[in-house]
C-alpha cells in the first residue's frame, strides 16, 4: 500500500449519500436473475435491485420473505457493471452484515421483506455500504436518516402496479417539507415532536427546504407515465419493481420508463415511448388489499 491510503476515508456520509446523487434522474429496477439484470442494464437502468422474488410474487405466494441467496447476488454482480443493490429485512442487522461482506453497492432495508424486528430498525451508521430506506411521510424519513440512511424512497404499495400509494407518499413528504419551510423558528420544536423526528434534522429541513439525502419514489410504478408523474411530483428518480418483469415486453417497457424519467416534463416524448408496449402488469387495486397485506405499514 502507498502512503496515500492513510488519508483516504471510506464510508463517510458524503461518500454514501454521494452515490445516491449519481443515481438521480434514473430508474432502479428489481431483478431476480442475472438474465433480467442484463436486460435492465441494456435498457438503461442506473442500478438493479437483486432479489429472489419480485413484490408481486411475494404477495401472491405468501410466506416469509428474506434476504436473497448470496449466489444469486454474486451472479447478478458478475453480470452487470452498474450498481447492484440488495434487500435486508427491517431490523435484520446480520443480513445487512452479509450484504456488506458481499460488497453490494446499496442495502435496501425494506418493508417488502418480512420484518425481523418490530421495534428497531438497523443502526446504519456502522456500515461502509450505504442504506436506502422506505418512508410514507416526513417523520418516518427523518427517523431513518437519523439511523444513518443515505437515501430515502417513498414506499408506495409494492407489487400492486397501483401507483396511488406512491402518489400519496411522495405528496405527503413534499407537503410536510413545505410546511416546515413556512414555520417560524419557535414552531419547529413542536413540529419535531409531532413528526417524531430529531429537532436538528427538522430545523435543517426548515432551513434548506429539502431532505439532506436523495428521495426516490417506489411502489406501484408500472408505466412510463407513472414514472414521469413521480418525477413531476418531485422525486429524484424511481424504483420499478414488479412493473417491468411482470409485463408483456420487459426490455421495451424498461427502456421506455428510462426515457420517460429523463423527459418527465415532455408529454410528446412520454406519448412516443408509451406506444405499443404490450400488456402492463395486471395489478391489484390497493383498496382491495386487506390491511395486513399492505406492506407500506411495515416500518416504524
Amino acid at each position, binding site marked *: 500500500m502507498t502512503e496515500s491510503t492513510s488519508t483516504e476515508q*471510506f464510508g463517510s456520509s*458524503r461518500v454514501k449519500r*454521494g452515490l445516491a446523487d*449519481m443515481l438521480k*434522474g434514473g430508474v432502479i429496477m428489481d431483478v431476480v436473475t442475472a438474465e433480467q439484470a442484463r436486460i435492465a442494464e441494456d435498457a438503461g437502468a442506473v442500478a438493479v435491485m437483486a432479489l429472489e422474488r419480485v413484490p408481486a410474487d411475494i404477495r401472491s405466494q405468501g410466506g416469509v420473505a428474506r434476504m436473497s441467496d448470496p449466489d444469486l447476488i454474486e451472479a447478478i454482480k458478475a453480470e452487470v457493471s452498474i450498481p447492484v443493490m440488495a434487500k435486508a429485512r427491517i431490523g435484520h442487522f446480520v443480513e445487512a452484515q452479509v450484504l456488506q461482506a458481499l460488497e453490494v453497492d446499496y442495502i435496501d432495508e425494506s418493508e417488502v421483506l418480512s420484518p425481523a424486528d418490530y421495534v428497531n430498525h438497523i443502526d446504519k451508521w456502522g456500515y461502509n455500504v450505504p442504506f436506502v430506506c422506505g418512508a410514507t411521510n416526513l417523520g418516518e424519513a427523518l427517523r431513518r436518516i437519523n439511523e444513518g440512511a443515505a437515501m430515502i424512497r417513498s414506499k408506495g404499495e409494492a407489487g400492486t402496479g397501483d401507483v396511488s400509494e406512491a402518489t400519496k407518499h411522495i405528496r405527503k413528504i413534499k407537503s410536510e417539507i413545505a410546511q416546515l419551510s413556512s414555520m417560524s423558528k419557535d414552531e419547529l420544536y413542536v413540529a419535531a415532536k409531532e413528526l417524531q423526528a430529531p429537532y436538528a434534522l427538522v430545523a435543517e429541513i426548515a432551513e434548506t427546504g429539502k431532505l439532506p439525502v436523495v428521495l426516490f419514489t417506489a411502489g406501484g410504478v408500472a408505466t412510463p407515465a407513472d414514472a414521469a408523474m413521480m418525477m413531476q411530483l418531485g422525486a429524484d428518480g424511481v424504483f420499478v419493481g414488479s412493473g417491468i418483469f411482470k409485463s408483456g415486453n420487459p426490455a421495451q417497457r424498461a427502456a421506455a420508463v428510462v426515457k420517460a424519467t429523463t423527459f418527465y416534463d415532455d408529454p410528446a416524448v412520454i406519448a412516443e415511448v408509451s406506444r405499443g408496449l404490450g400488456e402492463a402488469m395486471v395489478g391489484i387495486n390497493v383498496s382491495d388489499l386487506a390491511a395486513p397485506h399492505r406492506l407500506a405499514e411495515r416500518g416504524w
Partner: protein
Amino acid sequence: MTVGVLALQGDFREHADVLRTLGADVIHVRRPEELAVVDGLVIPGGESSVMDKLARAFGLAEPLRARIRSGLPVYGTCAGLIMLADSVLDAIVGQESLGGLDVVVRRNAFGSQTQSFETDLDIPVLGADPVHAVFIRGPVVESVGPAATALATLADGRVVAVEQGNLLGTSFHPEITGEYRFHEYFLSKVRARTLAA
C-alpha cells in the same frame, strides 16, 4: 455567455448550482437545439452507460461530438470523464463514448461502493491548497496520450484529472464538496473562447 449542463441523468443540478453561484447563465441540455446555444458544457456524474444510451436515442451524440471537435469547452466529472475519453475499458457491451480526450479511462476502477472514498489531492494548476476529492465508484485514467496532460494523481501514481485544450475531466466530484476551483478554471476557458470569437 451561456453554460449548459448535460441533464440526461446524474447530479446535473449540483453542477448547475455551482456554475450559477459563480455567475454563469446555466441551462439544462437534453436536446440538440439546447446544445446549439451553449458556450460551454458540463457533463455531470452519473451512470455513463445510461447517458450514452439516452444521448444516442435523442439525437444528441453526434451534435455533441461535432461541438467537442470544434473546440467547445467541456468539463466532465466521473461519468463525464468517461464520456470524454477516446477509449474506455470495462464499458458495458455496446457502450460508446463521445471522445475528445486522448486518454484511456477504466470505468468503475476502484470496485464496489465500499471502495468509494474521499481524500486530498495536490493540483498545482488550481493553487497551493489541496483539493478535497470524493471518488464514487469512479474511473481512473489508465494512460494519457501525447495530446492530453495529467493534472492530478493519487499517491500511487494513478491519474485522476486531465486536461486537453478546452477539455477537462476529473474522476471525482468537486460539485458535491463545495470545491469551486475546477468550475472557475472551466469557466475561464469558456470566457476566453467567447471573447476570442
